């Protein structure tokens, strides 16, 4: 599988937010609620990762609900790619 690096995923996340006129903070501890990154934004990001890797990323909601920070998003997508 063509796995994206953490930096590449971060760049895609930045693009998702930039499309909505928002900026992705540098700090991985930044709270997603504070930067307005919602579940549908996560979905968009996951689909962008899929586009880049050519592999579907399917997952259940409980894992998604545990995500609270930018770092959590990157961790989750990194681990999804390895499944």
């Amino acid at each position, binding site marked *: 599988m063509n796995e994206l690096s953490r930096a590449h995923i971060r760049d895609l996340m930045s693009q998702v937010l930039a499309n909505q006129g928002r900026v992705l903070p540098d700090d991985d501890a930044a709270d997603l609620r504070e930067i307005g990154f919602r*579940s549908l934004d996560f*979905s968009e990001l*996951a*689909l962008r990762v899929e586009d880049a890797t050519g592999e*579907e*990323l*399917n*997952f*259940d*909601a*409980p894992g*998604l*609900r545990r995500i609270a920070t930018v770092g959590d998003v990157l961790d989750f997508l990194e681990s999804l790619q390895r499944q």
Partner: protein
Amino acid sequence: MSDTPLVPPSSVVLVSGGSRGLGLAIVTDLLDAGVKVAAFARTVTPELAKLADTYPDRVHVGTVDVTDLSAAQAFLRAAEERLGPVDGLVNNAAVGQDSMHTHTSTADIARIVETNLTAPLQLTRLVVRRMLGGGRRGRIVNITSICAQRGFPGLVAYSATKGGMDAATRSLARELGGRVLVNAVAPGFFASEMSAVLGSTQLDQIVRRTPTGHLTEPAEVVPVVRMLLREHTNINGQVIVVDGAASV
């Protein structure tokens, strides 16, 4: 009054997914009411096995995956040999969902549709064929969900299957011409089991919006199922929502 005879109370009821949760509560309640019960599930839990031990003459249990049509057919025949002709069916077996539609695998969507929609339609066909072929009348209760009528994120395929069963309930009631009464019971979210798939924020929101102030419990659903199987009410082709008016 027409000459059409009333459909008698069901005396031998087949319950799919009867090993835990609402299914087990339905089995227990029907046994308490003196009904004979044939119950199957993917796994026979100790609770269901205990009921079989307690009521050896009135219970037939087995390990059957509801999507395995030939196994379901064999179970039905064995149950009828032991308990007598089945004149009641509760389509309860179902799988849940907790994933956004875009990120649910195609295999999972197919599995949810097969288990929650195709399988109960097939099981209903089997049971109705035996009822009609044997010249009997009967009753069917489909356990659906409030998801069939209201939207909830993460439950797209699940909702579609439950909506499908609600629709099938109405058409079957018309098709079977009063010889078999067909109804659905649509519980709101239970505090346990299916509700485990909702976040605490979502659950709190539902409780706040529920006039009765609490989520539905299986014990609140079983009397409705029993009524549809046992009482003379002329209810047919209906979906009865049990959710404390959360969806009203």
